């Protein structure tokens, strides 16, 4: 049984269409990265999962239950780190956690939870004095209350320093090993790459790709980019490289020093040989795989006319 099923979800706010016919599934036990630029509809999707907002059309099931009719039961088995929240300034971390513990009817130890997120020092301080990073740690601790079957983390790295972000990923891994499903939204690819089994990329309210990180990388990089610095630029030479069967694209990337970017599927030595045959001197060359950021960019920006 999938942990989350979103089927044909559409949500409009008046004239604005936030989500359009969105469908995807998150399998039980997986860590799913929900990726997209700001404003793509990630938070709206999460708000529907938690019944904060109601769909205009479509069906959403969480833990096998209808997200609207069984919201209470869903939320009793789910830990949430929401986005755009605000802690209760006048209450301490301990009081926040006691509230979550009471609400879920479990008997976790606030101190232990705060130790996990490295906030035990501030347990009796009022949350009003917390930094964004501390508030984020507190919310993560609240999400962990009661060993939830599903964790929904909306932009969990917000306000965390690199060390905090690493600890957060560590906790995601631990929770996943415990058997929890993790639904993790972010607008930064590199944060999901390290922990996610699969990634879904959302753009303008539509899911444009769902795959493993490796699969996504493969789908985007049609070959390797070879960068060659030569002594001069020559139209004939470029033409002859372009005519090679393995080469899909040749660009003049820079004039000084003259550099060519060549997208090539097969043998790179053929390319270099072709250039030298035309009397050019190859001074330097490098190859690069498509980076994850490239993958993300290619899905979330309009296809540019190269």
């Amino acid at each position, binding site marked *: 049984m999938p942990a989350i099923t979103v089927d044909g979800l559409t949500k409009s706010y008046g004239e604005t269409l936030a989500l359009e016919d969105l*469908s995807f599934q998150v399998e039980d036990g997986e860590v799913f990265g929900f990726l997209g630029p700001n404003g793509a509809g990630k938070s709206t999707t999460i708000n529907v999962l938690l019944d904060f907002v109601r769909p205009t059309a479509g069906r959403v099931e969480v833990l096998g239950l209808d997200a609207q009719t069984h919201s209470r039961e869903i939320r009793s088995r789910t830990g949430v780190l929401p986005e755009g929240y605000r802690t209760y300034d006048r209450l301490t971390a301990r*009081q926040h956690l006691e509230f979550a513990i009471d609400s879920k009817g479990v008997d976790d130890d606030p101190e232990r939870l705060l130790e996990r997120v490295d906030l035990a020092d501030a347990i009796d301080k009022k949350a009003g004095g917390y930094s964004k990073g501390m508030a984020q740690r507190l919310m993560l601790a609240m999400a962990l209350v009661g060993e939830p079957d599903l964790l929904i983390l909306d932009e969990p790295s917000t306000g965390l320093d690199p060390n905090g972000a690493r600890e957060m990923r560590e906790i995601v891994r631990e929770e996943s090993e415990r058997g929890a499903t993790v639904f993790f939204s972010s607008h930064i690819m590199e944060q999901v790459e390290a922990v996610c089994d699969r990634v879904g990329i959302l753009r303008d309210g539509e899911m444009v790709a*769902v795959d493993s990180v490796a699969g996504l990388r493969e789908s985007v990089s049609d070959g390797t980019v070879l960068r060659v610095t030569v002594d001069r630029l020559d139209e004939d030479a470029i033409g002859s490289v372009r005519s090679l069967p393995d080469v899909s694209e040749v660009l003049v990337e820079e004039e000084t020093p003259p550099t060519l970017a060549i997208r090539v599927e097969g043998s790179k030595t053929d390319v270099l040989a072709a250039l030298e045959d035309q009397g050019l001197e190859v001074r330097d060359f490098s190859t690069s795989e498509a980076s994850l950021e490239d993958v993300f960019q290619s899905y979330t920006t309009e296809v540019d006319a190269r």
Partner: protein
Amino acid sequence: MNTETEAGTTDRGTTAPSSSINPESVRTVAKKDFQDSVRSWLFWGLSVFFFTLLVATTGAVSYFGEDLAAQGATTDVLVGFVSEITRLVIPLIALVLGWKAIAGERESGSIKILLSLPHSRKDVLLGKLLGRSAVLSLSLTLGFVLAAAVVAALLGGFDVVDYVGLLAVSIVYGIAYTSIAVSLSSLTRSTTIAGAAMFGVFVLFYVVWNTLSDMFMLLAERDVLFFDTVTATTEFDGEEVAIERLPEWAYFIVNLDPGEAYGRVLTLVTDVDTIELQAELDAELFGGELPFFLQDWFALLILVFWVVVPIAVALYRFDRVDL
């Protein structure tokens, strides 16, 4: 990747099934809300102002009113005085305490913390009402006890039953206004709008409703529209006297004001001459027998109405909005 739109798509628009109420959940929300709002400086500032006013007035009454004490009427005067103050001040405290209850949480986003946990929206509304009512009751009880201590110190004793009755009715009155405040607060996401709504309630009951009676009379004397007066005859010093009064429906409307109801319910629980006298005078206007809606028990119903109806409307509507 996209499945067909038609199959498996149940379009239920933006309506949602109404949520359930879980007493345990309501209690948890109420407890948290109490912990939170009992630490509000604005609230305690207002409460201290209220205590001071109460203690000063009651102190003055019992100190300068020694003749009254001799006549054993002090508690009457005390309750009369105190009820005049509380009638004006309690709504103010309740509105200030309640206006941000829901709107504030929606504006800041802290409601996401509440509703990420397994509480229904109804639990949240009821918990808020309960929590804030508890804070208000605490404040009122403290104020009343302080005032009582001052009076007791000056007079050496007074009628506790009347005084406790006054406190009890004041708490119900306070809860009615808290219900109005929390409910209005749930209708909007903006604390500015919520604040304006609180001000509107204040103007409605303090200004508009208080002048309704005069306004009706003015219109009635000129026979404007359907306004008209009724002539009631009554016996006064053995003579038949004719009094012009408003028709019964006008009295009914005037008496829907929670403040008006508060005053009338006090006759039910206290035994204060000044308040009793007013009721008797009113009765004269109706030939000795008050219509049911001017009787004490109906005033209590009106107070209960103001507790129940606003929150009921909010419970219905808050289930159906996007946060």
